[in-house]
């Protein structure tokens, strides 16, 4: 192994820059894509101003409901500033929550609780107004219902428990949340995303993006195998201590080690940026995913004769996975009958933080068969024919 390491190092030091580029592509590619997605989203959000004259929990609730919408970007402002910014067209529209908002809502009254302002350039005023109105309506509806329930309870005293207004409305919210969850999981084959936690239109999973980049970079870095098989090295390896197949395997293993070092680093960095907890499941998933990709690239590099075929195959696989994995396109574009695709999809394992033993075992089995056949054949190896 040490001699293979020295021979590989002779190659690596000649191409350090491109080696480092491809090694770090998954890490930097993921960060760039995710940041770009977030930045694009922020640009696409419509800036609105909110003026809170009321500090009741109802007003706070309305604010957080509006802020949770992926389409708007809300700023809390003083009325004077808000109107000034509206005039300067820095804001699309301004909504003023009046002093007695909370009181009126509790009474189930939704007239004149909010004042809205628009400028001559407001293009999203109507839909945003509709959204705010519907949020207020929802709140007043809930409140009305609560009073109705309370009145019913008063009318029929046998009820032991007296429900308060707060209890009823919070129960109502709870039920609503549960229903939301129910409807949204239907559209996903696996619960790959934490539903409702995201306030973004498109929030790709960093590990999904990373997995796609990883496949690409592994394939591109495995061109050494095609180049060295193409070179008529076998006529030399016949007379060497290390067989050509052992040489290829040894080198692939060195690449794997190098990859795993980079992956551990990427794991720590990406976890820091996108998630605070370090999970061993995810780490194992990443390691097996990389191992599987290396084994897969090894097999394909054994089959192709031309580096461009290898690059093309890598790109095609990444493209296919990008479309089918649900990382970039939502999975509900595909019919339910194709659910099995996701069950065995390598990227799915990564998204679910599961180790990918089955694919890895299959690829290693194929490589073992190839190696045993090569080593046992006493006949001169014919690599090029």
């Amino acid at each position, binding site marked *: 192994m040490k*001699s*293979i390491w*020295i*021979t590989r190092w*002779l*190659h690596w030091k*000649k191409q350090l820059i491109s080696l480092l580029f491809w090694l770090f592509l998954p890490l930097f590619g993921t960060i760039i894509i995710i940041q770009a997605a977030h930045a694009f989203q922020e640009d696409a959000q419509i800036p609105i101003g909110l003026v809170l004259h009321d500090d009741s929990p109802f007003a706070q609730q309305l604010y957080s409901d509006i802020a949770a919408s992926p389409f708007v970007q809300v700023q809390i402002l003083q009325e004077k500033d808000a109107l000034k910014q509206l005039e300067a067209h820095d804001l699309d529209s301004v909504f003023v929550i009046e002093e007695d908002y909370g009181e009126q809502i509790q009474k189930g009254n939704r007239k004149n609780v909010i004042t809205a302002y628009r400028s001559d350039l407001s293009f999203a005023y109507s839909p945003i107004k509709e959204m705010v109105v519907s949020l207020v309506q929802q709140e007043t509806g809930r409140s009305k219902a609560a009073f109705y329930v309370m009145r019913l309870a008063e009318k029929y005293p046998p009820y032991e428990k007296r429900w308060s207004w707060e209890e009823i409305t919070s129960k109502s919210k709870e039920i609503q949340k549960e229903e939301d969850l129910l409807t949204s999981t239907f559209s996903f084959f696996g619960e790959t995303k934490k539903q409702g936690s995201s306030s973004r239109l498109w929030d790709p999973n960093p590990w999904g993006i990373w997995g796609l980049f990883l496949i690409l970079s592994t394939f591109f870095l495995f061109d050494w195998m095609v180049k060295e098989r193409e*070179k*008529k*090295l*076998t*006529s*030399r*390896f*016949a*007379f*060497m*201590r*290390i067989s050509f197949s052992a*040489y290829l395997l040894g080198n692939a293993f060195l690449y794997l080690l190098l990859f795993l070092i980079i992956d551990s680093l990427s794991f720590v960095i990406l976890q820091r940026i996108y998630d605070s907890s370090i999970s061993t499941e995810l780490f194992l998933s990443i390691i097996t995913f990389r191992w599987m990709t290396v084994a897969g690239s090894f097999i394909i590099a054994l089959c192709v004769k031309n580096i461009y075929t290898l690059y093309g195959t890598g790109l095609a696989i990444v493209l296919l996975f990008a479309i089918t994995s649900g990382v970039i396109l939502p999975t509900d574009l595909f019919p339910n009958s194709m659910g099995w695709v996701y069950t065995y999809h390598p990227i799915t394992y990564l998204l679910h933080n599961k180790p990918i033993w089955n694919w890895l075992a299959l690829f290693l089995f194929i490589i073992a068969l190839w190696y045993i056949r090569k080593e046992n054949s*006493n*006949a*001169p190896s014919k690599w090029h024919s």
Partner: protein
Amino acid sequence: MLQVNGIHKRFGRNTVLNQLTFSAVDGEIIGLVGENGAGKSTLLKLLATLDLPDAGSITLEGKSYTKQLKEVRKRIGFVPQDIVLWEHFTVAENMRFFEKLSWTKKSTTALQSLCAQMKLDKWEEKVSTLSGGMKRKLNLAISMIHDPKLLLLDEPTVGIDLKSRKEIGAYLQKEAKENNKIILYTSHDMDEIIHLCDRVICIGEDQFYHDLLIREGKSCLLLT
């Protein structure tokens, strides 16, 4: 001692070698001549274990080509017709690369002196900047790293300058005479063959093999 007994090789219907028998003793340089397509490269590949004969047997120092393949291969140095080098490596790096994978460990000094023996002194130069003659020498030097008993060369001097040819020739002669190597090589240059070789095996289109003995660089004695 190399012994070749009645080997036979054909590709489809094309019989290339038919009942070829000869032997070579230590310290002997044998030239292989013949028309293009006569089967010189085919014979070298069989002797290098890179292809199998359809019939017949070969032994090197008593080791069978079929039963003791590994032992045989340790004793063979094969200089391929194509130049198999890392173009973007220096001479030193090429030598180091193949030494690491070879049967014998050699120090940098030993590797450097191996190159120097065939007047390849551009140790730190990139292969891509070397002349054709220098590349041929390096191609040969790499095949000599593990000190093979039998050295097989396929047109080692084709298309290179006269000076390099002479230097390679002198090196081969020294290896045969001083280190008792058995050397077989093919060439189109009859002058070179007569000057360098102890014997010539001529592979004719009629698949008759003429084994010639060369003495004192000029007069030939027909053996078969």
